[in-house]
């Protein structure tokens, strides 16, 4: 089993963020924390023994690191009491720079948390400010170093590219500095403007301009090359790692393995069914306090849906999907191969680098809708 735990609180909200998060005080976080513990207890009593064996746990947000390393450690230990953490299980916490001290990282690591995913995003002061990040470049790099000092842990760094006004070389410049620290894992995401976020409004009003498609594509391909030459292997559209450090938890999503989501708005995929909890923190804590189920909505998947998902998710990963899945979808395959978007190995179909950046168009051809 994989467990995702959502921490829907931040110190302040970033200008591009439309995730389920809010700024809240100590009391609310404490109540939320007890609700999480209650949800863990409930699930552990329902799930069969076999499904309580956990191979990865991911605490994401929001900003889990606005609480101390000790508190995070305590939350994880609670999970350890309710579920059976398998040897070698990957335990990740998302960290915002400038939240945790060296001490926090150590405290978290000593509780058993063994992977830190740090949201560096950019090393450009002006852009960080524009994005509404509450840290500067130095603080971001320092966080990576603190995490490294915490012992035998895996470090991942999140970076954004195609940011407002960015030049073609921006991502490479950032990468140069990040790679000096040799994190085990790097994620690269192009900035997307989600409706109604402050950044999207600024864009609508012409206050900021985004780099065009060619700029974004150039940045991405230059980064692929750079990371490859530094020993980072691409294993998914946006994810790169030194050998042996791929993120097991995220791979499980793409491989359609089952996972349990805990907390407000968390998504689960269990027994062939997708469902998610209520988004509102208030509703979630209320329901937990009254002993009600926090689940808001179920989606039963048909065989067709399953196939859709398998292709949509599987193609994101570098080893692709079995050709047998796709053959059912007609003759679009040859065309996509001819255009250099797909490659075929003996029995698998996978995206080329060009195809990865155009995966929506590829999926459009292959997906049953």
């Amino acid at each position, binding site marked *: 089993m994989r467990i995702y735990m959502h921490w829907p609180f931040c110190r302040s909200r970033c200008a591009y963020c439309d995730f389920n998060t809010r700024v809240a005080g100590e009391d609310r976080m404490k109540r939320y924390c007890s609700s999480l513990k209650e949800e863990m207890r409930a699930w552990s009593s329902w799930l069969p023994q076999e499904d309580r064996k956990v191979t990865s746990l991911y605490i994401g947000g929001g900003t889990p690191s606005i609480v101390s390393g000790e508190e995070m450690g305590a939350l994880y230990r609670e999970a350890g009491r309710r579920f059976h953490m398998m040897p070698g299980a990957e335990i990740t916490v998302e960290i915002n720079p400038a939240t945790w001290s060296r001490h926090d990282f150590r405290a978290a690591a000593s509780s058993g948390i063994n992977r830190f995913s740090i949201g560096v995003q950019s090393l450009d002061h002006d852009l960080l400010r524009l994005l509404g990040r509450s840290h500067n470049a130095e603080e971001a790099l320092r966080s990576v170093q603190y995490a490294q000092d915490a012992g035998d842990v895996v470090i991942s760094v999140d970076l954004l590219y195609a940011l407002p006004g960015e030049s073609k070389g921006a991502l490479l410049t950032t990468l140069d500095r990040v790679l000096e620290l040799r994190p085990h894992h790097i994620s690269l995401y192009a900035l997307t403007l989600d409706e109604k976020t402050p950044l999207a409004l600024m864009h609508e009003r012409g206050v900021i301009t985004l780099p065009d498609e*060619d700029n974004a*594509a150039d940045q991405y391909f230059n980064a692929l090359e750079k990371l490859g030459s530094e020993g980072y292997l691409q294993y998914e559209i946006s994810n790169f790692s030194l050998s042996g450090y791929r993120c097991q938890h995220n791979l499980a999503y793409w491989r359609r393995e089952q996972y349990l989501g805990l907390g407000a708005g968390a*998504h689960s995929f269990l027994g062939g069914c997708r469902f998610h909890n209520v988004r509102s923190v208030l509703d979630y804590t209320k329901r937990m306090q009254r002993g009600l189920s926090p689940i808001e909505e179920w989606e039963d998947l048909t065989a067709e*849906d399953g196939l859709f998902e398998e292709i949509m998710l599987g193609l994101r990963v570098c080893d692709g999907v079995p050709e047998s899945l796709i053959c059912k979808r007609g003759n679009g395959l040859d065309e996509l191969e001819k255009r250099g978007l797909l490659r075929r190995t003996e029995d698998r179909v996978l995206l080329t680098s*060009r195809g990865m950046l*155009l995966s*929506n168009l590829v999926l459009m051809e292959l997906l049953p*809708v």
Partner: protein
Amino acid sequence: MERNRIRNFCIIAHIDHGKSTLADRFLEITQTVPEQKMADQYLDRMELERERGITIKAQAVRMLYSAVEGNEYRLNLIDTPGHVDFSYEVSRSLEACEGAVLLVDAAQGVEAQTVGNAYLALEEGLFIIPVVNKIDLPSADPQGTVMEVADLLGVEPGDVLEVSAKTGEGVEELLRTVVEKTPPPEGDPEKTLRALVFDSDYDMYRGVVAFIRVMEGKVNKGMKALFMATGAASEVEEVGFFAPDMTSCEILESGDVGYIITGMKDVSMVKVGDTVTNAKDAAQMPLPGYHDPKPMVFAGVYPVDSDDFTNLRDALDRLKLNEAALTFAPETSRALGFGFRCGFLGLLHMEIVQERLEREYGLELVITAPNVVYEVETSQEGTVYVRNPSEMPEAGVIKEVREPYVQATILLPPNYMGGIMELVKERRGIYQDMTYLSGRRVEIRCRLPLAEIVMDFYDQLKSRSRGYASLDYEHIGFVPGNLVKLDILINKEPVDTFSCVVEKRRAHAYGKIMTQKLRQLIPRQLFDVPVQAAVGGRIVARETIKAKRKDVLAKCYGGDVTRKKKLLQRQKEGKKRMKMVGRVEIPQEAFIAALKVTREEIGK
């Protein structure tokens, strides 16, 4: 009522010179409309007319007026459209009158169309009462305008009346003058019926309403009426007049203006300009002057939603009833699907038809760039008329292409002469002569290709004269031109919707604008897409839409797969709505945007 107490008259005026306001004062003074019902500008019935402040459909209203000497007169005010697009309708409504009030704005002075219509009225033998309006305006120059009007008509300045339709000043005197000076109608009421259809309307429940002026004889309920041009015959169910609402009466006699309802549902059977006679005792000859108005400007009209095709056809059928000049024939476009090639009198007519279709029938439409009709001499089929550029014969069989020309009259203050002369030259105009009407107004006469007017000549004329110049024109026939068909090819396939006929030396410039525009509008595809402009087989402009490089969803946050699926499904649905040109997917919005630019940018 005795015929010598009837006065049939109209008001000739340029847009905004105050015709509708003057009509309102007439209705008030004659107490035709009760005061509480008096909406401003009563005669402009259609919502669209009211909004635009122009009269599209001719109306006719009967007013009773007690003159000073105690006699009561029946005044029939026939409203006429003011725009050059509707000159045929103007001529039909003039035909129904004996007198005309020529109304000129004291601040604006005489405009080209006013001159055109005034001469038309003189030719029809109407008695003209010149009137200068808006004398209450601070910017008015009544003296100067009176002189101009007097010069124009060759009358004494003292014969020109001065009024303010807004305040009512001088309007009573004007009505007295109408009664005194307008000749009473002639025509023998004992003769066989001959009545002119000068307009028509459609009533949902009762069918076609024909607006008529009885020239000879009489018409009453129960009579079998024959429409001579179309041959349609039907019993008259109702006879009446407008006061200004429809009011039924026993009989209409020679000299009267009113309407008849025959229960006929087929709008095409009642045409403006036709003669109504008694089917049982038919007149030998129809009244002179009937012809089918000839549309000169054509455009493709397509429903945005292809399911609306039948609705569009029904709407056009209905509209045709009181848009006599509108023509339409089905056509298909690979980009826009099924639609109609519509013929219009001019651009304003086109805009009005579009607005009425959208407003009154709730249709969402795409209109292609308008073009004129071309007369093409071919070596194989003789003379053919091309209403859609994509139907232009192969270059090899064309002997000559002729395009419609107009005789244009432009009136403007002398200080804008230079700029306007230049414009005329740029737009292939042939300058003829120039006359000073007064110290502040010059008349330029020239010949122009109608295609230039369809393009943006009028907009340019207005902008280069700060709105002071005015234009009038009449068709003078086809003139040979150095014209070629320009095709636009997307990924090597011609797209009919963008084909056009242009002057040869402008083909390159036009092709460049179109290809550049399309490059910006068409989304990038999986492969490079060439966009080319070609004359015959020769490419005159080319752009390339670079292959798409990035279209990927961001991270799948916290395992929310459902959201990702929905985004992809939405994108796929959008893709289904795309129009395919070969293997290129083009959103319909791109087509619409490209069609919009053609007119705006090509003239430059």
